[in-house]
């Protein structure tokens, strides 16, 4: 796990604060400088209580995109054509677990990662 992958943008006392919107849309770069995509989603896990949730990983896509309207989830039913189109648009999603995040440049909107893996959970396109 990285010791401190963040570059402070707002420091209040001893606490460094960021906005999740600064992470969404950030460019994702591999260590060799090649571009892996953009942060399209921030996954949180933990609890109990929202204050105990931490960033577990980042969903990365080849383009900056907004909500997928829930069609990327298995339990969401809907017109098959819409579902097929959303799947087509999002066929290249991948996942970066937090442990693979080596550095975040909050002001430059760049996330440097060690590796990008497949998205294998319910959000994966099947």
């Amino acid at each position, binding site marked *: *796990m*990285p*010791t*401190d*992958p*963040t570059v*402070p943008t707002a420091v209040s006392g001893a*606490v*460094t*604060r*960021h*906005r*999740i*919107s600064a*992470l*969404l849309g950030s460019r994702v770069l591999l260590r060799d400088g090649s571009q892996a995509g953009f942060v*399209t*989603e*921030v*996954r*949180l*896990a*933990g*609890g*109990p*209580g*929202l*204050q*105990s*949730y*931490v*960033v*577990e990983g980042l*969903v990365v896509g080849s383009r900056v995109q*907004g*909500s*997928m309207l*829930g069609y990327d989830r298995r339990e969401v039913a809907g017109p098959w054509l819409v579902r097929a189109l959303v799947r087509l648009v999002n066929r290249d999603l991948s996942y970066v677990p*937090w442990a693979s995040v080596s550095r975040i440049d909050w002001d430059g909107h760049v996330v440097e990662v060690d590796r990008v893996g497949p998205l294998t959970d319910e*959000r994966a396109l099947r």
Partner: protein
Amino acid sequence: MAERTDQPGFRRQYDAQLHLLDRQILDRDGLPVAKVDDIELVVRADGRLAVAALLCGPGALGPRTGGRLGRWTKAIWRRLRPDEDPQPGRIDAALVTGTDSAVHVSASAAELRLDGLERWVRRYVVDRIPGADHAD
């Protein structure tokens, strides 16, 4: 308000955009407070990014929107705020009691004293239109 049959709880995982951003925040009485316009993260001692608060209102939505519209939103909001360095509305994450289609908090809307976009527009735009006091 209709009595709730299923209490909101917490998911094992949240995808911030899908499950939290733009969701309606309801107070302890089920009254709408604001929308989740952004989420504040805090860097913990172990380097992990933890959820600290929900941010609401033009001061949060403007920077998130970005571009000219976002800059204008924030600039107008700052102009109309009496404080020199206004901060967006903030709901501490510890006040969140659970989520379903909305985000539920344990405080009342009055206690939170938030500056949600709808509340802000009503106060600074709609209420200043001549005849607005007859709307009720």
